[in-house]
């Protein structure tokens, strides 16, 4: 990602106009920090403001100091069509001896002009400077050793090694079950970067290793060389007695940045350009540490306390009661806190130093709170419910906890202080039988099923029920889909009824619309009757029905009752009817209906069917 960015900056620097060279160019050098210890590295920054094309500074040689180029940063601005910006080159300054040093002026060429920085002072102290967090760290390694020969190291001892793995642990003799802090350090040459790492494999089968977390990164100087160091702190546990090798092998992928600058064309050999072409390539390697013989022994069996449960480390014991002023029979909680460092998984709940018949103890619960990433340091809290059955009891006895101290090589037994009690009430009788209870094994009280009296929790179980009782469904209703479907159907039915009701109400509030619906229904019924009358050649009924149909249809147009609709009304008030093609049909039906009862005129079925078609045509015309 960085290389394309640099390339773009480079192109911009070439293509865009710059402020006049030399006019606003400033060069300065800074040292941060200006006071270090012999085993530390400080950073020198040479900043050129006002130009992106300044040459690499010429760093003067200083006896006792080594300068190693570590990269550069660029910045630029574009204002009013003019580019401005600068470039900063960084160097790691590695001290080779203690003392006060002066870094002379550093010369930088910008175009044809030379610029010089101010001299810088650096103080190098001989003693090691304590780093924050290191004192008291149980993972602190022994003093740095020379790099061991690893499978990756060259054997001639003259050229520096590219990478190696180093283990550090506090002692060379351990106890079975003990958790041992282990520090793994991977030293990498500055041209290498760690890409991926696998869990280390320990030599032999006498130890198991905990998971690795994220490593810390630092720079260390070893044998005149500067190395990037990845450090992991973890735990190992000894699982077999005897003399065993302790070493590790780590598979990892590292990024190797090849020195390709020499292949670049003349004029492009500045470190600024090397970033464009120098692409790191991954390489899978296996680093193997030196193996040392360590001795694993079992904790001694003689003088082992009865309360020892396998805890190895250094622990402290604290006990408190939730209340000391209670009635006999009331439950109180004893909080037993074991803190320190060691194998907390083997720390079991302590026991009372003496057995007291009138104290009832329940199974404790356990909770562990680690104070580091590995569970090596922390505190384990046990909470135990206690019931004092006799108010005469004056003190809660001590808890006893034993562990093995691997440093002192002996068992240590911790004893809490007795806790004074102020109990009230009357003593509880042990195993007091109560009526209706299952005090004798297997006895049962008839009729207990469905008992209405509410028994209190007493000294034994309520007896078995003797009646089988009703059978229930095993799966509750809310877990069955049929239940929710029933509810949904109810709501849907209600919703439909609301829709139907609204429709009815709408019709009730609209008499014209309601009459239209009724008329249409009546017309449909009369048309059926008309067809039957046509078939039976009942001309009298036919024409009376046809007139009725027309009266109903025109009543809607005239806004009067059907019985009041006459031929005269239609002729007078519906001009469309008189002038339209259906007028003859309308007049014919009305006149025939009036006259047929007296005239005795006969119509054939086919003739009546024609009349029915005419009626349908009138209905279609006057909707």
């Amino acid at each position, binding site marked *: 990602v960085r290389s394309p960015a640099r390339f773009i900056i480079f192109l911009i620097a070439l293509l865009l106009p710059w402020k006049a060279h030399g006019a606003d160019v400033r060069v300065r050098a800074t040292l941060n920090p200006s006071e270090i210890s012999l085993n530390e590295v400080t950073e020198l920054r040479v900043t050129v403001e006002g130009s992106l094309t300044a040459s690499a500074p010429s760093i003067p040689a200083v006896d006792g100091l080594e300068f190693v180029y570590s990269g550069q940063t660029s910045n630029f601005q574009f204002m009013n069509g003019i580019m401005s910006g600068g470039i900063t080159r960084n160097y790691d300054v590695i001290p080779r001896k203690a003392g006060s040093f002066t870094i002379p002026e550093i010369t930088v060429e910008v175009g044809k002009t030379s610029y010089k920085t101010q001299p810088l002072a650096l103080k190098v102290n001989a003693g090691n400077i304590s780093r924050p967090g290191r004192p008291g760290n149980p993972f602190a390694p022994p003093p740095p050793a020379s790099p061991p020969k690893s499978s990756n190291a060259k054997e001639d001892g003259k050229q520096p090694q590219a990478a190696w793995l180093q283990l550090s642990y506090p002692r060379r003799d351990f106890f079975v079950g003990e958790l041992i802090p282990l520090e793994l350090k991977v030293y990498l040459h500055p041209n290498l970067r760690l890409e991926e790492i696998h869990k280390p494999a320990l030599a032999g089968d006498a130890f198991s290793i905990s998971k690795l977390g994220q490593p810390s990164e630092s720079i260390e100087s070893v044998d005149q060389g500067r190395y990037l160091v990845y450090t992991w702190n973890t735990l190992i546990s000894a699982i077999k007695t005897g003399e065993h090798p302790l070493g590790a092998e780590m598979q990892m992928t590292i990024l190797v940045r090849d020195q390709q600058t020499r292949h670049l064309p003349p004029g492009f050999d500045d470190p600024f350009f090397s970033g464009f072409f120098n692409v790191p390539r991954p390489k899978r390697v296996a680093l193997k540490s030196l193996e040392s013989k360590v001795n694993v022994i079992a904790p001694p069996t003689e003088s082992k306390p009865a309360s020892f449960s396998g805890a190895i480390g250094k622990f402290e014991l604290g006990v408190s009661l939730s209340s000391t002023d209670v009635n006999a029979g009331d439950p109180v909680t004893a909080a037993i806190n074991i803190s320190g460092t060691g194998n907390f998984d083997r720390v079991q709940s302590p026991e009372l130093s003496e057995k007291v018949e009138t104290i009832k103890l329940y*199974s404790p619960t356990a909770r562990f709170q680690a104070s580091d990433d590995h569970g090596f340091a922390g505190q384990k809290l046990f909470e135990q419910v206690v019931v004092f059955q006799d108010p005469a009891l004056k003190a809660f006895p001590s808890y006893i906890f034993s562990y093995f101290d691997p440093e002192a090589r002996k068992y240590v037994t911790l004893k809490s202080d007795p806790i004074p009690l102020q109990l009230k009430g009357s003593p509880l009788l042990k195993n007091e039988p109560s009526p209706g209870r299952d005090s004798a094994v297997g006895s049962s009280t008839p009729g207990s099923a469905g008992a209405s009296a509410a028994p209190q*929790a007493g000294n034994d179980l309520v007896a078995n029920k003797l009646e089988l009782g009703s059978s229930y469904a095993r799966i509750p209703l809310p877990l069955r889909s049929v239940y929710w479907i029933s509810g949904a159907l109810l709501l849907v039915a209600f919703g439909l009824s609301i829709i139907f009701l609204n429709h009815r109400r709408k019709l009730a509030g609209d008499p014209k619309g309601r009459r239209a619906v009724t008329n249409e229904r009546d017309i449909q019924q009369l048309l059926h009757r008309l067809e039957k009358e046509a078939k039976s050649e009942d001309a009298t009924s036919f024409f009376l029905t046809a007139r009725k149909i027309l009266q109903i249809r025109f009543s809607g147009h005239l806004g009067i009752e059907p019985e009041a609709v006459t031929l005269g009304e239609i002729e007078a008030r519906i001009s469309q009817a008189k002038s339209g093609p259906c007028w003859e049909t309308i007049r014919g039906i009305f006149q025939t209906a009036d006259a047929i009862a007296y005239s005795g005129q006969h119509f054939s079925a086919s003739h009546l069917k024609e009349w029915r078609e005419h009626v349908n045509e009138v209905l279609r015309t006057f909707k």
Partner: protein
Amino acid sequence: MNRLFILNLSILFLFGAPGLVTANDQAFHEANSAYARGDFEQAVRDYEQILRGHYSVSVLFNLGNAYFRKGESGRAVLFYERALQLKPGDPDVHANLEYVQNQLGIFKSPPPWWRSLFDLFSLNSWSRLTLLTLFLFLAALAFRMHATTVKWSPRPLIVILLLVLLYSAAGMIVRMDELDKAVVLRIDSPLKVAPVSHSPTVGTLTPGLVIHVEKELDEYYYVRTPEGKTGWMSKDTVEKVIQRG
């Protein structure tokens, strides 16, 4: 065909059903006898056999007693909880549950006062009541809207039904938390940080402790203890009070 079916149904109704009840009664009596002579292993087997065909408070209660006598207090609590799910107000079950939990060092604080309002019925009863009152409420509402010419007003009835509906729905919702109840079965059951076997533990739980399952993943439940502690528990160490399926 139809006649044969009706005949079979009649025989089943007249003779078969009483016969089944008698068989269950007999098995129940035998299980109680095994319990009475101290053969709790046999009693547990018998009660569990009966439960396959007859899931009742009495069988669950006696099975809880048998498990307690057998030394499996966690399972005893589980079956008492199952009995209470069917009959929340059963005093015998409450007494034995409290007794066993006290023996295990579990002392429950009394429930809030309002909880007793919803302990009247089981989850099933609240569910039925909710559905029934919903039906009646909607029917009354529809009747009021459709029948505009009736002489008496159904409004008081609607209000009463609405109140009963709200009460029963609340009872159903309150008791729905039973669906996620579970009981710790084993001693020192670890509560883990992650649902994997090699995960570090945040503590151990006592058998007989009633916890709530919030979610599950593969072979683990994510649970919350009454004290609010959360973590993952293997399904081997805990069992839900209500089994789905």
